[in-house]
């Protein structure tokens, strides 16, 4: 198994941000906001919800960054915080009302790809929504962010084999829904 390094931040940035330096924290936002939006979007399936979940996740990150013991785990940790916020947001939303997928959102998905990609995107999102929110989060962390099973497991409190097992089940479901991508 080969390795790679995540070098988006200068050394010491996380420690400075944890000490209350909002300039250092802004560097973290610049580095990882896209990752967090991707996670939130793939979990919620809604752009507005995704941005709301990310905003909430950044607030939690500001308060709890000091609890992060290893800078290497920052990205998985932020992804896990975001996924959790997205799931919480969906749960709260379901409590308020039974939400239908708006046609505008489908149009958003459809409009995001090429001419032939619109249907494929709709299929992909529909297939994703057939998974549980926990599995969507794991799938998004693994494939949209490229995190390893060990990183995901460390962030969400599972073992790496446990993550791989859930991924396998999720992939089987997606293959069933999508056919051969």
């Amino acid at each position, binding site marked *: 198994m080969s390795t790679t390094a995540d070098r988006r931040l200068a050394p010491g940035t996380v420690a400075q941000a944890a000490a*209350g330096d*909002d300039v250092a924290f802004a560097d973290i936002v610049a580095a990882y906001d896209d990752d967090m*939006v991707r996670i939130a979007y793939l979990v919620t399936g809604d*752009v507005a919800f995704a941005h709301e979940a990310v905003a909430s996740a950044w607030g939690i990150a500001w308060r709890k960054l000091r609890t992060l013991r290893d800078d290497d785990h920052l990205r998985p940790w932020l992804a896990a915080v975001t996924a959790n916020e997205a799931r919480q947001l969906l749960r709260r939303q379901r409590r308020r009302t039974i939400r239908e997928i708006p046609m505008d959102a489908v149009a958003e998905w459809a409009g995001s790809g090429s001419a032939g990609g619109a249907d*494929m995107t709709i299929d992909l999102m529909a297939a994703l929504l057939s998974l549980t929110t926990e599995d969507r989060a794991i799938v998004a962390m693994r494939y949209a962010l*490229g995190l390893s099973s060990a990183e995901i497991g460390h962030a969400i409190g599972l073992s790496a084999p446990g993550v791989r097992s859930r991924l396998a089940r999720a992939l089987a479901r997606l293959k069933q829904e999508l056919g051969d*991508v």
Partner: protein
Amino acid sequence: MSDRPIEPMDAFEARLARRLRAASDHALRAVDPAAVARDVALAHPRGWLRSIPGWWLTRSRQRERAAVLVFATLSLIVAILAAALLIGSRPRPPSVHLGHLAYTLANDVYVADWDGRHAVKVTSASGAPGSGFDIPRWYGATLTMSGPDARDPTVSGLFVLERAGGGIRELGPDAFNFRFDAARSVDGRRYAFIAGSVLTIADLAGSSNVLRPPPGHPIWDNSDLATMSWSPDGAALLAGGCTVDPCDKSPYATHDLFFVPLDGGSPQPLSSPDTPAWHARVSPDGAEIAYMACHADTSATSRCGSYYLGIMRRDGSDRRVLVDTNATGRSPGFQYHWSPDSRQIAYTFGDASGTLGLWVADAARHMPPSQLMTGPAAPLGWSPDGRLILATHVDGTGGSSLWAVPTDGSASTELVRGATSGDWEWVPDGALDPFGEPNAVSRSSGFAPPSLDR
């Protein structure tokens, strides 16, 4: 930052990864990271500190905490100062002219409104021989005080403050060693004192009448135990005296109480033969007598056991203990004053353990005594309605001050800080100003020269 492992993906996973990233691309937003960071920092409970102008607060959580600590400390200090100011400026009863307060402050005597305001140093008036005045006492509208004798400053004389532009004059052409408090007659026109074992009754005009103990009768003792009290009808004085010669002043075993008729009749003993008593005061209604006494103790070297404050009828009957100090071997320094309605007695309680306090007791003992002040405090007098007691109190630093102490247990009001003794003179119906025009506020009227020293 260490390297992290890369897990291989099969073809399906690789395509899925590309499609997921492509599908989520359109959700990406263009944010200002600095704005996001500032917003989350400001949303923190201590984030408001970052809105304070100043670069240094925006970079450290430790500084945030330090700022909170400093802010909390400053707030506490401000709150304490505000509370102190509030207490210091606690609203007093309205300054309706109800009477006067005379008090001693740093060896000078001042006269103020009854609540301590509008004070005037009267011992700067003409005729005052320097300073060293004490024990101001009102005789109606006339103020007396002890002070250094004009011819022999080592002894004290009795001085009278003349009203309306007069000065201070020493009473009588013959100086006497006026060492202690004089007993005022109920009508405020005469006073009585003991000096040199001679009982003198005098008036403020200077005339006096000397009563010498007849042969075979008590010897007047000029110690502070010989506090005298006038009967309400002014016909007799209640005095303590020695029954043997010489007086045994410690532990006062030879002191008894006598009614001394002012018409020259023989003194009438009041105490029980086996119970020494002294320091008596007739109640305002004349029906009862309070007195200091000690329990009989034949086993002691003297007749005295422990001390108590007792009450008896004017004829000496129905003796009862009002407050028992359980203190032996020394006088507990009892000071007390009858309330105007003769129903209560305010007193300083000093028990065997040395605990002091200002208490008030029901003379009929229907109610248990209640404590009004803690610490060394002594009553000086009552307001006519019985709702306030004028008292001295010594704080922890040894500083004395005058207080108006409500008898209902509510908060006391400090009238004059630093004052060591004082006396209230109340206008009977609030309509008469003894120093000026009816209904006038006293201020400096009647004194020359007026000197607002406070």
